[in-house]
């Protein structure tokens, strides 16, 4: 038997054994395949960052046709819903009871000022308790106000053209739906959980059980152990990725404008890095309990917080921004958005691939080196 075929037989035996472990423990399969779908649906529907049906209180002190028109301008779309028509003193209690998130206050003599050719003044009070929502509400209100003032100007000044007309056209996600923005991020997050956690557990399990010593006493080499452990979970990761994509496109209409092959190339590179990270954790901790915690801390948190999945990296302080460069999820999230939403190819996304490949190489090298050193 040649060296290469012995290598293949031993790696194959490791991988086959690992597959049987997974097959015999249906919980692993459910965890790996059921959880992504569940989380995707929860996040996709639950974590909506869209400004929709914001409860709006109207305080109309003017009670004129013009003031009512302004209020209608706000409630005509789906962004705001009128929940109360109240006195200004009632606004605060409404905010406190969470019955309104914003209040439009039209002061007395609003119509009169408009008629005199002065600018009409109206106030928007916003519940700033949730800063992100408040900012989005302000953005929407601003747009509505601008459109209304343009209308008013046309009416009073005739068909004159405004000096500057900004035409905003949101590309790639024209309806600004959160799901489309979230799904690529979720894909990274879900792959990270599965890969880091499962490898960390399985390798730490071999140490705990004592079977690692048995493996070291056999001709199975370290690379064969590493590959035999990684390949089945890599395959599982690909199934997860496919599932996330399928659910994303089927339920949330996430577009796939670029190459699916490229998605898998980048996803695969990301997975190898995550598997390497899980391996490193288990080699260092040699204990399933500690490995689980280390896996959670080192994979989930960064891939949620520092990947740009939810919080834009550009807005982070420089220290966090610098840190995000060593978080592989950052590259995958960016690349997936590029491929899925914009149809980008490797020509634009190669830096992401390089980042992912570098992380994978370092993680695997560290894990294998650490693996070897422990075996005297």
């Amino acid at each position: 038997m040649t060296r290469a075929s012995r290598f293949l037989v031993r790696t194959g035996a490791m991988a086959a054994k690992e597959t049987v472990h997974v097959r015999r423990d249906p919980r692993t399969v459910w965890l790996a395949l059921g959880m992504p779908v569940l989380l995707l649906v929860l996040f996709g529907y639950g974590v909506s960052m869209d400004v929709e049906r914001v409860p709006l209180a109207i305080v109309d002190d003017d009670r004129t046709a013009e003031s009512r028109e302004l209020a209608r301008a706000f409630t005509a779309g789906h962004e705001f819903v009128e929940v109360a028509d109240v006195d200004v003193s009632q606004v605060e209690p409404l905010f406190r009871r969470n019955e309104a998130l914003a209040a439009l206050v039209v002061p007395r003599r609003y119509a009169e000022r408009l008629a005199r050719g002065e600018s009409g003044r109206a106030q928007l009070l916003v519940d700033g308790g949730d800063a992100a929502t408040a900012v989005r509400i302000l953005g929407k209100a601003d747009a509505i106000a601008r459109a209304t003032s343009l209308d008013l100007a046309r009416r009073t000044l005739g068909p004159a053209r405004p000096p500057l007309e900004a035409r905003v056209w949101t590309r790639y996600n024209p309806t600004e739906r959160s799901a489309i923005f979230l799904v690529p991020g979720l894909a990274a997050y879900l792959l990270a959980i599965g890969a880091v956690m499962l490898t960390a557990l399985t390798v730490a399990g071999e140490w705990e059980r004592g079977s690692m010593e048995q493996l070291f006493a056999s001709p199975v080499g370290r690379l064969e152990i590493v590959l035999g452990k990684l390949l089945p979970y890599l395959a599982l990761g690909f199934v997860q990725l496919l599932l996330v994509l399928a659910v994303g496109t089927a339920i949330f209409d996430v577009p796939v404008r670029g190459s699916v092959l490229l998605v898998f190339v980048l996803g695969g590179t990301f997975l190898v890095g995550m598997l390497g990270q899980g391996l490193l954790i288990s080699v260092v901790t040699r204990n399933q309990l500690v490995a689980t915690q280390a896996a959670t801390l080192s994979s989930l948190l960064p891939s949620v917080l520092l990947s740009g999945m939810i919080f834009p990296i550009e807005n982070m302080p420089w220290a966090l921004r610098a840190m995000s460069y060593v978080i592989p999820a950052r590259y995958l999230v960016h690349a997936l958005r590029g491929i899925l939403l914009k149809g980008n190819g490797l020509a634009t996304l190669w830096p992401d691939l390089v980042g992912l490949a570098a992380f994978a190489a370092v993680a695997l090298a560290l894990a294998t080196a650490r693996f070897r050193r422990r075996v005297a």
Partner: protein
Amino acid sequence: MNGAAIETVDLTRRFGRFVAVDRVSFSVERGEIFGYLGANGAGKSTTIRMLIGLLAPSAGEARVAGHDVRTAPEQVKRAIGYMSQKFSLYLDLPVRENLLFFGGAYGLEGAALAARAAEVLEVVGLAGHDAEVTGALPGGTRQRLALACAILHRPEILFLDEPTAGVDPIARREFWTLIRRLASEGTTVFVTTHYLDEAEHCRRIGLMVDGRLVALDTPAALKATWVPEQVLAVRGRALAEGARAMAQERGVVAVEPFGAGLHLRVDRATWSAARVKEFLAARGAADVRVEPSAPSLEDVFLAVVGSSTAPEAKP
């Protein structure tokens, strides 16, 4: 292949300042069952781990199956089978999957592996159990499966580290029948144990005390060297007073209670069975029966440990 199956010269392993194995030299012949005895922490497992290439020696040499464990650990690993102290089968897998995995780990595959797996199951008496989940098997049966996994690739040398720890006596006896059968077919067996009755199955025994190999010989020779006194088994009634008096006499090395009776270790020249009977009967004992008894390895072990830890025996 010629030469010894295992040969060590001044094999030493230090962990920091602690010397776990101290200049151990021995040689094991092919087809021999070699028992390695000692208390917990005496250095048995550390020695095995060096011999199978899991642990690098700090000093000294060891050759296993003709390969140097320092420079050719991979060749060593291919030539040996190892059953570790810590139980290391995959309990969640069926019997058959465990065999297929360990076979694959040693490079066996396909039909040859399947045939060999069936063969070793037959050897260890587990034929027909392939589909059972390993975790559901009783301890002794698991032990035999672990042995099956260790001999799949027909190793020249089998290393067994405390193979029968925690296994009931009947299963232990069956296990040793298997070991003797493997040895009779030419496999060299290196086994550590702290069950002294098991060590009687070994052709030769090495005794480890505090990292040093303090005695090495056949069980019979060890007994002759370390327990030269006559061992007498005494039974009867009202032995207590006579026993106390006996212990004060010259030529009496030890008086130990043994079941309802006594075990005496006495100088052969001064104490015969008849004289012991007479001595005890004179001090109130009734129905006294005295029979010569063979020394056990336990007697040897106590004698060896006693002399090795005595101040003058320290280096």
